[in-house]
């Protein structure tokens, strides 16, 4: 006797494909869970603003899932950080353009309400590190990391904090492995100098 379509057994190969898709979605979600906190902190060290950092991470998640979800899971790490690094660079570019415009308007209307100095992040705001038990060292580290040039900071965070190897870091930063080593070496020297008093 024929069964209605809804009761007919799903062909085995289709059930397998569906299971693979579902497992793939779960794997991506697990991966994003593991990187999202560090991603927010990494973006926040660049933007110095939590809201902007979360927006950048959200953009990076969208871009990563849209373009790279079908790639092998072993490639996800460098690819995700590459997308986020690209978003952070875009953010800096926009800020520079915005800064130029704001500077121009500021000269025209010195008493305008949108004072970029007032809107700039407070350099004395200690940031999340400083709210930890070892507040002084944390504040110094936060400040030292923020003071690094973007490429040096990214090399330090990706290579040493995220634990990518040199090749993966170079891929994430879209530069040569030699550049990664140079940026990292300079970052370590800068951080060591700045943190000298807190060691």
């Amino acid at each position, binding site marked *: 006797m024929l069964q209605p379509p809804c009761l007919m057994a799903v062909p085995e190969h289709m059930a397998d494909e569906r299971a693979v*898709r579902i497992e793939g*979605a779960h794997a*991506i*979600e697990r991966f*994003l*869970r593991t990187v*999202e*906190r*560090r991603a*927010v*902190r990494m973006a926040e060290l660049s933007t110095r603003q*939590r809201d902007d950092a*979360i927006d950048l*991470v*959200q953009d990076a*998640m*969208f871009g*990563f*899932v*849209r373009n790279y*979800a079908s790639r092998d899971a072993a490639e996800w790490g460098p690819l995700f950080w590459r997308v986020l690094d690209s978003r952070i660079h875009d953010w800096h570019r926009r800020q520079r353009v915005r800064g130029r415009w704001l500077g121009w308007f500021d000269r025209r209307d010195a008493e305008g309400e949108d004072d970029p100095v007032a809107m700039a992040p407070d350099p004395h705001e200690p*940031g*999340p*590190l400083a*709210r*930890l038990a*070892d507040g002084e*060292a*944390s504040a110094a*580290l*936060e400040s030292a990391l923020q003071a690094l040039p973007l490429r040096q900071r990214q090399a330090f*965070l990706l290579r*040493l*904090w995220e634990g990518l190897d040199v090749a993966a870091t170079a891929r994430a930063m879209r530069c040569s492995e030699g550049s990664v080593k140079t940026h990292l070496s300079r970052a*370590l020297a800068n*951080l*060591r100098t700045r*943190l000298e008093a807190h*060691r």
Partner: protein
Amino acid sequence: MNTPRDNEAWLERSLALLQQSADGLDAATLSRLNRARQAALAQSRHATRLWWGAAFAGAFALVLALGVMRHDVAPVAPPLAVPSQDGGAIDALASDDDNAEMVDDLDFYAWLDAQQHDDEG
């Protein structure tokens, strides 16, 4: 003078502080991250559905186009010769594929027909 061990110590301490700051993110931030993650994954599912929809629509359009082409090239039965009073013989000849070349000489056959009518008259 800094020893390698000193260097390792400040570095390890710095990385540990960084990790603590990531682990200690507030609930509002974690909630926003959760929503962002779900939205990114939902976008992926939506894109997959759109892809399948487009694939089915394309396949349907292809089948439709093939059906129309097949209909156009299907052999058409030759029209039946309908004998008429004046040109019946000519129509009958024209409907015969084997004698199709005779159609080219319509003037000749019209003259021949007229000659036969004259002879009978």
